[in-house]
């Protein structure tokens, strides 16, 4: 049998860091990128005698995420300890949730190749992040930085409902955009604040039992996840086709070689010995509390999408594109509001901006300039101050060194020539220098006009107003 006779089954455990000001159980700041061990205190360093106190925002954010993914919110929840030893885990247990997660039984809807599909959410629970191990290439050991220890996370566990890497990609993007819309996580993948454990298994098409799954931990790029799933799918099929058995294990995806490797020492069987954390008390949420959060949720992508189509007249494709990322959607709304040309803003985002991000392998939230900058760019073109081809150059500048587009075109001398006399001067000069073409034009070869306009553009280094040039040539050639 070939790989086409197999079906891939994928389930995800997504970890999203919550964008609270402080850690989950202590008052340390959570800001990314601080010097090692400067955002720590006796609690997150697990000094003897210290105790955790739960950050109220963590519960609120998790409930928001639960409501937004159609989950049931658990009225009676608690924290449990997951016990294991690792240098990045200061207490030798992670405070997590075991049998009573805050949210259960939801779903989100994805769209792949024009088809809608519901992906089940098993549960969402709160837990603390671990610290960071810095592996020194040249030195003898690893260095532990505990700034991240205790940063709040939600873990979103999906049902094994996905059947292809495209579906996984769509699910991850949709989930990310939901979390961004409700403002519970900034989901910065490059900072590790949105990452996934990917569970993959294969089975022969038509089988009802799942195959044995392998797990790839802590993946934080869409591209790698897709590649890893494709690799793992092919590897598992090959194992089975060769008469072997897929082993249940944790794998590490290596992006450089494009392969997975076995990670854990199999002799070290894990047993996390979960039990309720006696240092913390129950979390009991009232209907009123949950209703209050539901009422105050910000506008979700679906609703924005409808508005874009019905009120702003965008196509469904454009609306889908814009709402796929909160960063796009926010920039679209803000820039459109300022320049009043929503369509143009959409086009910029959809074509050039998306292309450049793609080239740079960056995410929409990494756009370095502001919505105000983009609005100004659109306005400059609409007002005829610059041409759209100059606009593209301005955009490159905005990516390279963000500043006001006005300032850019002044610095670079890119202002469009719209002065009638100046235009006329160039037109006359071009007519004079291309007598043969003029004769052709007059003999009825209309196409020559384009050539003449091109010459004039060359002369003005692209700054002449093309509409005026066109009109002026027609007028002058009539003479």
């Amino acid at each position, binding site marked *: 049998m070939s790989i086409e006779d197999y079906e891939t089954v994928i389930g995800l455990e997504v970890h999203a860091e919550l964008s609270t000001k402080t850690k989950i159980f202590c008052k340390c700041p959570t800001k990314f990128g601080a010097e090692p061990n400067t955002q*720590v205190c006796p609690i997150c360093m697990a000094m003897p005698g210290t105790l955790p106190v739960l950050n109220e925002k963590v519960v609120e954010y998790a409930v928001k995420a639960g409501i937004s993914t159609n989950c049931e919110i658990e009225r009676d929840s608690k924290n449990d300890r997951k016990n294991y030893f690792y240098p990045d885990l200061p207490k030798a247990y992670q405070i997590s949730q075991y049998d009573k997660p805050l949210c259960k039984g939801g779903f989100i809807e994805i769209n792949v190749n024009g088809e809608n599909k519901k992906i089940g959410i098993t549960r969402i629970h709160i837990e603390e992040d671990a610290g960071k191990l810095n592996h020194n290439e040249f030195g003898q050991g690893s260095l532990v930085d505990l700034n991240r220890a205790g940063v709040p996370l939600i873990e979103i566990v999906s049902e094994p409902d996905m059947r292809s890497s495209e579906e996984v990609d769509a699910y991850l993007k949709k989930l990310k955009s939901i979390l961004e819309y409700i403002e519970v996580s900034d989901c910065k993948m490059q900072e590790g604040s949105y990452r996934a454990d990917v569970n993959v298994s294969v089975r022969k098409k038509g089988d009802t039992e799942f195959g044995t799954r392998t797990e790839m931990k802590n993946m934080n790029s869409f591209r790698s996840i897709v590649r890893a799933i494709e690799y793992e799918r092919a590897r598992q099929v090959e194992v089975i086709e060769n008469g072997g058995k897929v082993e249940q294990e944790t794998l590490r995806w290596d992006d450089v070689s494009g392969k997975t490797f076995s990670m854990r020492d199999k002799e070290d069987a894990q047993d996390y010995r979960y039990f309720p954390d006696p240092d913390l008390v129950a979390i009991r949420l009232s209907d009123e509390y949950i209703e209050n959060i539901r009422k105050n949720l910000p506008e979700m992508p679906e609703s924005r999408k409808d508005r874009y189509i019905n009120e702003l007249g965008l196509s469904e494709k454009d609306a889908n594109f814009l709402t796929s990322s909160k960063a796009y959607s926010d920039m679209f709304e803000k820039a459109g509001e300022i320049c009043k040309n929503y369509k143009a803003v959409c086009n910029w985002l959809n074509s050039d901006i998306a292309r450049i991000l793609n080239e740079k392998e960056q995410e929409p939230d990494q756009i370095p300039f502001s919505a105000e900058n983009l609005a100004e760019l659109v306005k400059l073109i609409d007002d005829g101050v610059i041409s759209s081809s100059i606009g593209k150059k301005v955009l490159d500048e905005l990516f390279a060194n963000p500043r006001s587009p006005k300032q850019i075109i002044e610095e670079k001398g890119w202002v469009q020539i719209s002065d009638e006399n100046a235009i006329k001067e160039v037109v006359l000069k071009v007519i004079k220098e291309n007598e043969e073409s003029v004769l052709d034009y007059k003999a009825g070869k209309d196409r020559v006009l384009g050539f003449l306009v091109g010459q004039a553009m060359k002369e003005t280094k692209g700054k002449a107003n093309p509409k005026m040039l066109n009109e002026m040539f027609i007028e002058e050639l009539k003479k």
Partner: protein
Amino acid sequence: MKVEKEELLHIANLARLKIKDDEIDKYLLNLQDILNFSNIVNNANVDELKETIGERNSSNVFRKDEIEEFDNIDQMIKNFPEEQENMIRVPKVVQ
């Protein structure tokens, strides 16, 4: 329940403790003794009862999301058994 030697060694490994060969019998005996005694809990008629989780049956103890930086990080770093660049040095972790 009878505790076997392999089980004891597995448990010790989970707890990151080493039991020397000449101590195994003593540990087995102690553990068995205490487990036999503790087994009394299985004679108690508690089927109808809920578990007591934590001592106080309270709920919803939360803290405001407000930053307070700790002012004595130096003393914590002084306690590191091996320190390098403000971090804790450990033998290379194979990932």
